[in-house]
């Protein structure tokens, strides 16, 4: 069962840290909920400005978002190493090239194995910022 998503009530201060929350379906077990912020097209597709989600890596985070947000899922890509075999190993997931993930407003990340920690927040934004 995938962990639940929690919408935050309002915009957090810049650099705010994640919070500990109880994960739905796991009473008594406190797990770290990190924050995801959506900007631009990803916000439009997600339908929310930001959410809490439990994820240890970027890949896990994207899998969770893909499962919970169908319109955003169109922009989350899972490459099968053999495209004709549904059971073949997968590479990714990754964001479509039109989107980018940024960690804490600092660096951009794409490796699905990128670890996410308790102080992290991930921004999903448009990779193309041409104006």
């Amino acid at each position, binding site marked *: 069962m995938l962990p639940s998503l929690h919408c935050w009530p309002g915009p957090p201060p*810049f650099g705010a840290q994640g919070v500990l929350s109880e994960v739905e379906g796991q009473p008594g077990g406190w797990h770290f909920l990190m924050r995801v*912020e959506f*900007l*631009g*097209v990803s*916000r*439009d597709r997600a339908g929310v400005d930001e959410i809490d989600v439990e994820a240890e890596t970027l890949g896990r985070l994207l899998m969770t978002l893909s499962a919970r947000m169908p319109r955003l899922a*169109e*922009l989350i890509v899972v490459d099968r190493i053999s495209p004709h075999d549904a059971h073949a190993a997968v590479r990714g997931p990754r964001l*479509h*090239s*039109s989107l*980018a993930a*940024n960690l804490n*407003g*600092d*660096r*951009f*990340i*794409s490796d699905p194995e990128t670890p996410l920690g308790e102080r992290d927040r991930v*921004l999903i*934004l*448009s*990779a*193309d*910022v*041409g*104006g």
Partner: protein
Amino acid sequence: MSTVSVPFGYHGMSFRIDVSTGGVERVPLPGTLLRRFIGGSGLGVRLLLDEGTAPLDALDPRAPLIFAFSPLVGSPLTTSAKFAVVSKSPLTDRINDSLASSGFAVQGKACGCDAMVIVGRAAEWSVLVIDDGSVRLEPAADCAGLTCGATDARLRSRLGSDFRIAAIGPGGENGVRFATISHDGRHAGRGGSGAVMGAKRLKAIAVRGTQRPEWADRQQVIAISQDLSHRSFGPATAKYRELGTATNLLTFNRLRALPTRNFQRGHFEDAGNLSVEQLTATRSKTRESCVTCTIGCEHMYGVGSGTVRVEYESLFALGSLCGIGDAEVVLRASQRCDELGIDTISAGGTIAFAMECVERGWLDEPWLAFGDGQALLRAIDLIGVRQGLGNLLAEGSRRAAAAIGHHSMAIAPQVKGLEIPGYEPRALQTMALGFAVGTRGADHNRSGAYEVDFSEKVDRRQVTLDAVRHAIDTEDRAALMDSLIICKFLRGVFEDFHEEAAAMVRSVTGWEVTARELRQTAARIVAAKQQFNRRAGWRPEEDTLPDRVLDTPLPDDPLATLSRERLAALVAEYHRQRGTADPRDVEG
């Protein structure tokens, strides 16, 4: 008499028009020259170099104003209905190439030329009418003082609705150094080409034509066009199609990269008021497309009794940069700039600069304060007619700083005289390099280096010399796109842009062009721009940024610091990697 073979996709001809006399010279364009510079910016810059007028003042009647088309214009390739306006800039005294999309490109090329080189000065306000290759000047004194849109309407009513018009507004008439040339509501916006046109006493150019060059492989042109159009509906262009460039505002604000109050901050507390979400929730909205474009990036919002096209650059320049978070004021300001025919970025940048000068006591205009929307609107109107303070601000921030004195040059938000667009240089340092070395000054359309900052290739707040090759790549790609001409909003659609661009050029021209050749062409076009600048007096110390952004951390983000030494090292490495072009390659 030798017969000159004209390549497919071209007329092999430029019209050189002297509006002092009304004389027209039809100048053959050799296929070798066209292949080496393609069209648009590349062809325009090369023709400008050939004129040998780089040392002249940009507003001298002898200084040419060039409209350059491309081999793709008139084809069904999406976004290809574009043209370049090339001249010396009255704002920077360096090369200026502004691009725009409209039916003017299609009708202009259909007049039977690949470029129009305009020199001289008409005896009175005139409209240059080019009707299927026949050229004449008509009086247009009745259009003097009209807005861009009103001029367009009047001339099409007079000449025929099938004419397409490029017009200047009061800004161009009054020599505002950042005046635009407007057509179909769009603008060749930056660098002051409207002032150059005004200096020739041309209120407008009207074009209509029927001459369409053949393509080498019609079936292939159509196949490529259909494929590209299909892909242009996909996620790579979703941002432009669904939200428009205005959506950049909150992204930049979140990353502390939104220039605010004349580049004093990178975060604007009222940015939410100007966001797409807020505009959409509170205003009527429609979407429009340029001719032949399948993306449809123009998001028109209701303001007053009309509408205005809202772009990120206008929101930033007339909003956060001036400390104004009232959307109604910002949209009205943008609309007013369009009517007057002045560049929103330079207008906002120059006004924000003046606001800070007032705040510091360097300028005695107490009514002009950050956050005062009525003051912004008043300043724009004064600029358009060059009255009062507007006469100074119409000169742009660099010249205004020179007149104001004190230490104001340090806070003038410009490079080579061109006001910096909405990318905070300290927070986006590959872009900072792109600004510093840009041939037309600080510009986000001639360098796409912000893409590098929005990637894993660099640490955007502490870039190293590794960033230089990426900055060069984006500059070269922009030069190629501006010469083909293809809209940059398509760039995410291409798997391999150079390979696909080569296929486009092959199908239209029949030349066996390769991706490698196009890469060389792009570098040659950048070199030609640099060559023009050298002839116009460029000095190496021009390739820098305002003192404000050097050595001083961005207040909202102390990690965003760009030292003078590091920028100098980046610029030096840029020139080392560029090398010195052989003048015979760019001019011979």
